[in-house]
Structure formats: C-alpha cells, structure tokens
C-alpha cells in the first residue's frame, strides 16, 4: 500500500501495463520529450523509447484515427488527448469509427484502444478549454466511458481499460491530478460498469462522479454537522451505467440529489434522474434534484468561473431543500 497522487497512479499504471504487454503503446501531443502537458507520461520515453512513446503532429483526428488502425490489428494504443475539449476534433473517428467498427465488421475485429483525456473547469482555461463533454461519449453505443475519482480507482480502472477489448474513453480531471490517496500494491483491474457506495448514509443519496465525488464528500461532511446523513454513490463508469447501485441506494434513503460537472439540460443528471424514477418511484419522498454548472460557456475570469461551477455549498443547499421536501 502506498500513498500517491492521482497523477502518479496513472503514470505508474501506464508503465506497469507497458511492461506487462509489449503491444501497449502511448501516443499523443507533447507526451514524449515534454512528458505530457500534465506529466502523466513522465519518464516513459526514456524507459520505453520512441517506438512505444510516440509524439504526434498537432492533429487529433489524425492520431486518433491512426490509433484505431493500430488497435484493429492487435496493438493496444493508449492515446492521450491533451484535454477532452480537443477530442471534439476527433469526434468523427471516435463516434463513427472506434465505436462502430466492431459491429460493422460483424464482430471480426475489435478496437482495444484507450483515449485518456482530462476534463474539468476551475483552472481558468477559458470557454473552449474547460468543458465537460463526457456526455457526448456516454451517449454512444460501442464506447465505454470511465471516470475515476481517486488514485486507487484511476489505477485499477486504467488497468481494466487497457486490457478491455472495446474502445474506452478514460476521463481524468485537471482538479484531481494532485489529489492523494492510498493505492494498494498488486491492484487488480476494476470491474468495468460498477458504481460504488463510497459513503453509507440513511437520509439522502448524492450521486456523483469524478471531481464531483469529492465535492459530494465535502458536502456530506457539512451536512453531517446538521444531522443529515448522506449516502454517496460514485458512478465511476458513465457507460455502462450501473443503474442497480443507484436505484438500490435511493430505495433505502428515499430521496436523491445528482451532482454533475456538466450542463444541466440533457446532462448526465437527467439520465440518473430518469433511472431513479423508473427504479425507485414508489420509494421517493421528494423530487430528484440536480446540481450542475450554470448554463453558460465557462468564463475565463476566475470569480466568474467559480460562480458558474457547481460547489459544495450549492450541493449542500440542494440536499437540505430535498430533505426538507420529504416532510420527514
């Protein structure tokens, strides 16, 4: 058991997987000599050389397409897209090719690739560089979308993603890279598609993922001082979605608030709210609430960006209102 950052956990896991399987290689902008914009590939070029750590031209559609081709023929590319915003340039390759090749070739050829990419606002990177568009990928059959919130999950889920035979969009988060946590030695690959109850509680369920799982934990601590016992479900996998864990929790607590790091309208919270009303309608004592970003392009200005992002305070308010609405 070692304590390490989310960044270190990703980096060590990448290295382990490259040592384990010579078909695993990494590719992306600035990942070799520069060791990645967020230093996830630190030391890898030195250790594995330029055949397995490939710096690419500034062309996302190009290198994602090339990775798909490599994956179809048996390699296991792990592509880094500098931020999820730049994945929009590769949308056609991801949505129309990576996600569909297996089916359209009648199952003869899968695409075992991983696209690692961080999302997340709060870093003052402006409207085009701060979006959370994981929803686009979570919507697409043929893709898997993982969103770990802790170093241990980052490690076990990246391991699983690399060994998985389907294309995986692996969502990291800029605000999480420096967070620390314990990572067990010899960690097994995670089971893809499993949410986790990360904090048991009795009064209300907060459903969150990635950065919002931490915001939820902060909110739950505050709520505990008010005597509200919040249970937290960390989704961890946005596709496949673990409906069962969500529904079971809400059946116990009788009400729910979704904390999502995206825009409200058509967002991930809408899917969760629909899941809850289908699976736990008779157990609900109050309407499901959602806490999300303001419906505006993320401002670059620091105070404005803070105002637009969902916070522990706004989540606490929403939970209190929800619990009050149950009339208990």
């Amino acid at each position: 058991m070692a304590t390490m950052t989310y960044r270190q956990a990703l980096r060590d896991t990448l290295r382990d997987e490259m040592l384990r399987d010579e078909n695993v290689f990494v590719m992306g902008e600035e990942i070799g000599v520069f060791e990645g914009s967020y230093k996830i590939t630190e030391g890898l070029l030195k250790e594995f050389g330029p055949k397995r750590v490939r710096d690419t031209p500034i062309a996302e559609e190009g290198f994602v397409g090339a990775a798909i081709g490599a994956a179809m023929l048996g390699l296991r590319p792990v592509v880094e897209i500098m931020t999820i915003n730049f994945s929009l340039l590769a949308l056609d390759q991801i949505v129309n090719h990576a996600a569909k090749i297996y089916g359209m070739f009648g199952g003869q050829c899968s695409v075992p690739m991983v696209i690692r990419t961080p999302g997340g606002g709060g870093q003052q990177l402006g409207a085009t560089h701060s979006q959370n568009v994981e929803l686009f990928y979570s919507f697409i059959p043929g893709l898997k979308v993982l969103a770990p919130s802790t170093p241990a999950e980052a490690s076990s889920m990246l391991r699983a993603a690399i060994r998985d035979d389907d294309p995986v969009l692996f969502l990291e988060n800029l605000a999480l890279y420096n967070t620390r946590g314990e990572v067990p030695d010899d960690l097994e690959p995670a089971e893809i598609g499993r949410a986790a109850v990360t904090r048991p509680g009795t009064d209300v369920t907060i459903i969150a993922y990635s950065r919002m799982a931490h915001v939820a934990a902060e909110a739950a601590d505050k709520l505990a001082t008010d005597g509200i016992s919040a249970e937290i479900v960390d989704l961890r996998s946005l596709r496949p979605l673990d409906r069962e864990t969500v529904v079971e929790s809400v059946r116990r607590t009788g009400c729910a608030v979704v904390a999502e790091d995206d825009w409200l309208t058509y967002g991930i919270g809408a899917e969760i709210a629909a899941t809850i009303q289908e699976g736990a309608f008779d157990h609900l004592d109050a309407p499901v609430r959602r806490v999300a970003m303001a419906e505006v392009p993320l401002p670059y200005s620091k105070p404005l960006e803070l105002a637009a992002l969902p916070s522990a305070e706004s989540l606490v308010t929403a939970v209190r209102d929800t619990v009050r609405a149950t009339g208990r």
Partner: protein
Amino acid sequence: MIVDAARGAPLGTDAQSPPPELVQLLTPEGERVEHPEYDVNLTPEEIKGLYRDLVIVRRIDTEAVALTRQGELGIWASLLGQEAAQIGSAHALRTGDMAFPSYREHGVAWCRGVDPLDLLGLFRGVNHAGWDPKAHNFHLYTIVIGSHALHATGYAMGIQRDGAENAAIVYFGDGATSQGDVNEAFVWSAAQNAPIVFFCQNNQWAISEPLERQSRIPLYRRAEGFGFPGVRVDGNDIFAVLAVTRKALDNARSGQGPTLIEAFTYRMGAHTTTDDPTRYRLQSELESWKLKDPIERLKAYLVKNEMADREFFDAIDAEAKQVGSDLRRRCLELPDPEPTAIWENVYATEHSLLAEERDQFTSYLASFEDVSR
C-alpha cells in the same frame, strides 16, 4: 534513409537545413540585399515608424509576461522574436483587409489600432476580447489551433461575392499546418480562388513538438500541392516580410487567389507562460537565433545608413517604456466583472432557461447581502 529515432523524421530533409529559397532583403547584420522578385521602397520616416512599432510591441509583450508572472494575467503567449513577421505583414494590409489572428498576434493587433489593454483584459479575464472586430478589421483571438483558417476562407469568399477589392489574411503557426481545418482551408480557398493570404509564422516549435514532427518538406512547399504559390520569407526581416505579404495581398485582390507565406522565424520565449522550453530545446539554438533578432537588424540598418541617431533610439525606448507603464497601470485598474456577468452574451436573444437560472442566482447572491447587513 537515415532516421533520427528520437524524433522519427528522416535526417537531412529540407525542414532541418536552411533552404536556399528564403526571401531576404535585410541580412541579420543589417545589410540591404537585392532579390530578383521582391523589393520595398520605403522612406526613412517609414522605416523609423516600423522600428518604433517593433520596439513598442516588444515592450507590451514584456510587460504582459511580467504581469502574468505577478499573477495579474492568467496566461500570456509571448511574441518575442516574431515582431518583424507580425509588424511587417500587418503593414502590408490595407484598412479594408480583414486579419484573422491566432492568440499570439499582439503585433498585428497593435498595427490594426487595437488598444493593448483589450488584449490584456482578455488574458486577465475581465472581458472576452474588448475590441470591435469590424471597427479594426481584426478578428477575435482564436485559441483552438487552426480553426480560424476556415473562418478566414469563408470571409474571403464573402469578399469575392461582394466584388470588393479587399483580401483576408489568416495567421497561424507551424503546428497548425497539421490540423485538418487548415488543410481544408487550403483546399477550399484554392478551389474557390478566394482572396486570402495564409500567413504561417513558422517559429520552429509547436509547444515542444519540433517542425520535423509536422512536415518532411518545408511548409511553404505544401501550397503547390493545393494549387497555389508558397513563399518562404525570412520572418525576422521586416522588409522582406512586408514585400512578400504586399505582393501576396495584391495577387489576392486582383483575382489571383491564395498564397501561403511561411515566415521563417523563432519563438524566443516559451509557448505560453505555463511552458518551460528548457525542458525540450537547447540553449544554443536560442543563442543562434538571438543573432538574427528582428529589432537589432533593423537598428543596425538605420545606424549604418545614418537614418537615425542616438537621440531617436532613446526617444523610442522612452516612448515604449511609457506605453508599458501606462498599460500596467491601466491593467491593474481593470475591475473584476460582477458574478451575474456569466449570464450575459450566452445567446443574442432572451432564453427562458437562462433567465430562470439568472434570477435564481441573483436571489441566491442577494441572500448573502442580507446576512452581511
């Protein structure tokens, strides 16, 4: 073929060795040289005006980098070393021409009459580009790499439709030449014979990716495959840049279609203030480019030809210093926007969901005001 394993590109390609095709009118030592196709005929006053612009934009840039280091701006992309490419090309523009910048074209902005405070305001996060693009014929900064090449192509097609005698110019870097958008802009503008100049500042580095990661041939030679001329110009030679850009714009205005200009220059600073180039490039490379400094060479020319004396240079330095300190003062005076500003400019028309969120947020803020009273 010998391949450099670390970089993956063939050794000895033109991308790595200085090619003979470089258009140059002023040597790094400040000697005026002839070129069979290109020339400029400038008065001493005009040349001194160019020198003034070069010095002032460098000062603006220095001030902005310092403000960023002090936490007053969120980020800044320095133009250090690229002043001649920007000032030279911008002086080739006529008022009616439209310039589409990336995010480093502070020198072009200066020549288009944009207040540098608006550039700083953008990077300080108090506004989203304070200037009116139509008033200056200078488009907004585009942060996403290469996308605006297509916007410029569309604009140029609009010029064509209107039958106007104007042109569009789009600025991008060597890294952007790998992007699909830039290549599609080449295809489109060639097929449409659009009045556009593609002005590529090849500063040798796309953050940490060197030029040979983008191309096996000199970038200007790409143009031929798309069906229009490409020219490589010494990007640190303001005379050559001015001459080459003028000709390309004239060609565009007179119905001869696009030109790709590759201004061969060097990013003497970091990619942005968040970058540390010592991680991936050699100090000796920077030192060799310092000898080709665009400002020093024009200064040497002015001195050699006795067009300017000590008094002139001192006056320009003093003016630049004044511009810098005024800019710093005005930048620090910029107020942070009110939190409710996030709801502004999301849609051009009223949007019911947004109005609802804004009202909720406003009353949420008001609840704190009540507490403080």
